[in-house]
């Protein structure tokens, strides 16, 4: 087991430049939002001594006074987010596609990542659409079924305990669907990289999920677990460190970027884990 983990980690390190490329792309978008946030705050409270109140940590009144007295103050940030996220998602298909190609074929480097990513853009967009559709249809269907069975949940259950448990069950069922869909989309893309056939890869993906149902789920939950642990550690370590000195601000920024980079690493772990299983699978 340890050997296997070590092997996966070594393969992630092999593809560190592609992973870093994804991280840097996200960083660029993040910095754009960061700059807009800076100039927004600077415009409204840049000359105010209220900034001192933020030095010792989060102060709700500073932000709420700003928002409630300047309707639309946050709209540049929100609007930029709404525009930037879909654009990034398109780029993401290229970046992830290139990474998947390099993992599957055993190549490395940002050049092959980008070249192949662009090459796969259209078919991989197809997998994205199918995945999103599957998750939406299932989630909506389960929600509808739940609503039709339960009605007003606060009146139907004798207490909120079974209500909360039933909600957790639904979240669990949806998480299974999300995990399987994700596993299917990765394997289907691997198959497409190998065969170049869209429909055959869809079929191969389904057969893979059927055969490796448990393993796919385990990998999915491992990734979710890693993300949750990372988020927990983030709040524990970085949380709200205040801004009493430039050193503290700088350490905070550094820590945030380490966490951002690790998030992309987790994605790499997921791709390589599925590739390991897929290696032994003849679809």
């Amino acid at each position, binding site marked *: 087991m340890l050997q296997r983990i070590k092997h996966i980690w070594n393969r992630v390190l092999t593809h560190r430049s592609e992973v870093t490329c994804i991280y840097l792309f996200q960083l660029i978008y993040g910095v754009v939002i960061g700059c807009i946030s800076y100039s927004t705050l600077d415009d409204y409270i840049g000359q105010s001594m209220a900034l001192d109140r933020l030095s010792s940590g989060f102060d709700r009144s500073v932000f709420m006074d700003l928002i409630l007295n300047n309707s639309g103050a946050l709209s540049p940030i929100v609007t930029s987010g709404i525009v930037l996220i879909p654009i990034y998602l398109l780029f993401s298909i290229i970046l992830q596609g290139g990474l998947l190609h390099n993992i599957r074929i055993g190549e490395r480097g940002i050049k092959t990542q980008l070249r192949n990513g662009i090459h796969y853009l259209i078919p991989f967009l197809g997998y994205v659409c199918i995945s999103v559709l599957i998750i939406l249809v299932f989630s909506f269907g389960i929600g509808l079924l739940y609503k039709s069975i339960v009605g007003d949940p606060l009146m139907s259950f004798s207490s*909120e305990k079974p209500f909360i448990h039933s909600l957790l069950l639904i979240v669990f069922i949806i998480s299974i669907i999300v995990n399987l869909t994700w596993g299917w989309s990765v394997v289907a893309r691997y198959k497409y990289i190998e065969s170049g056939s869209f429909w055959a890869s869809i079929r191969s993906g389904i057969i893979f999920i059927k055969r490796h149902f448990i393993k796919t789920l385990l990998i999915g939950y491992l990734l979710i677990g890693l993300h949750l642990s990372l988020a927990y550690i983030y709040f524990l370590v970085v949380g709200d460190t205040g801004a009493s000195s430039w050193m503290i601000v700088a350490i905070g920024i550094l820590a945030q970027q380490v966490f951002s980079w690790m998030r992309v690493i987790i994605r790499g772990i997921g791709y390589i884990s599925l590739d390991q299983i897929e290696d032994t699978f003849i679809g």
Partner: protein
Amino acid sequence: MIRFSFIIIILFLHSFITAQCDTAYDSNQSSKIANYDISVELDHKNKVAHCHQTLRWKNTSLDTIRSLRFYMYMNAFKNMKSSYLKDSGGKIFGRNIADRGTDEWGHITINKMLDEDDQDLSKNTKFIQDLDNNTNDETIIEITLQNPLLPGEIGIYEMDFTTKMPKTIARSGYSKKDFFLFVHWFPQVCVYEQDKDGIWGWNSHQFVPGTEFFADFGDYNVRISASDHLQIGGSGCRISESKADGKQIVEFQAYDLIDFGFVVYSEFDVHTSTFQGIDIEILMPPEHCAFADRYREAVEHGLEYMSANVGPYPYPKITVVDPPVHALNSGFMEYPMMITAASFYGIPKSIRSVESLVIHEFVHMYFMATLASNEKEEAWLDEGFVTYYEDRILDHYHGKKSSFFDVLGYRSGNAENSRLEYIKLDHSRLGPIARPGWEIKGPYKGLIYAKTSSMLRTLEGLVGIQSMDKLMQTYFDAYKFKHPKEADFRSIAAEVLGDESIGFDLDLFFDQCLHGTDICDYEVVSIDNNSEQSTKVIIAQNGGLLFPVNIEIIYQNGSTAYMEWGGTPGQKIIEFEPGTNIKAVNIDPNCTINLDINFNNNSVTYEPNKKPLVKYAAKSTHWMQAILEYASFLF
């Protein structure tokens, strides 16, 4: 005979064991105008209570009383035509209440009312609609007396009435597993009082949204007979309890209350304790038992703080009812000596909704139960004062910056939250605070609760906490077990604070805050160190409220000076000697004027602290990165 003696002994022991409250407490604190002796026979299967009450009502007016008026609130839940429900759109507290079977509505009927000459008065009645002339509203009944009551006389009436409980709509009602909340459930006499011009008459408003209590003080003896599988709690002290043949009889005694409520449920866990000699009884469904300590601690904080800062808790007991989630609409409410809270399985300790609600309702034991203002006409006198103390208590025990919530580095104080609720309001459209509940359209809570508490906190900022405490203690002492009005509070304020010593016009303060819609917004517009004639600072009051305020001037050489400003609306130029180098100007540096709707523009500095700007820009960057990574997991 032996068996009979045995039963008597058992009954005696049982009564002895379950008796509550320190009997030594003062049971003679009010004028005891309306006194009730009620027997209740609860038919839990049919959701009906068959009741008999003996009413002793004292005519304390100078008039001869020819008719009595009673609140019949349960008739608000008779159908959708009542004034309480007709404009509700079929929803109360966000839940659908219109679609229900005929047996799920409620009502109250007086079957018989005998005077001392055994004359039945129940045939000579009419319903009164003073607010909206809605003839379908039967929440106030007038009963003509055969024997008028002379000034000082006491009328004694034997009344049979039936209360059919509705499936819970708002507070009163029944829910699953034989949950019943009996509040506003009996024919309760309205208040015969003098109006502003000194004319005596009935103050008897219908039950409409935005209105709750107004009743006279009196003693209550309530005996409830119900199936023995039910637990019963209520206002007052349980003085006896007996069980036989699948039935139980529980008797409550309470002195000097303006109302009496009780609760019944088959699944309550009962937690009892004593704090500072006061009995605390918490009734909660088993799934909420993890909250028992939080509830108890919240009540103890309320008791400790209010006793120390306002006055001693005037009753021997407090009952806290935590309704099960299927009866959530029964929660969030106060009754004398009994409050209904609300909680939800799993609420973490860092979100103090449980504490703030319990403390809020507990403080109502002072502002509502003891200082029994007319909640219908002047709701700010209880809800606003209660919110002010809720904020103080929460901030005192849980920290000014974290008493409301403190989750993952994001936090807020309770008082801070109240102010934010207030600054959200559209003041000119919403209108002033001091109006009857039925006239207020829009965010009632923001206006009555948050604006009043912000006003009181501003007053505290202006006069200091010691003077504020003295004002509240004097007010409580002078008007406990009475019906104080705005003028009463203002006259106590004038007496305690005195206009000269505080440096501002107290009357103007209350007129502006209670009867006006002006706002307060101080601003430092600019600092000009470069003018040849003089160094100039421009400040402004963008609103119309007039409060004296402190201005802090910080010079480049590090020295600091303070000056007073009357806060007059419009801009003001402050001139300094030419060459004076001012680094920063800060109006109200300690944020004492809580009614100021924007603290951010109260200061301008030449040397701003840019570190937080960089920090939050970096945070936004990081959050954007996280969003992109999570959003693209399928891409």
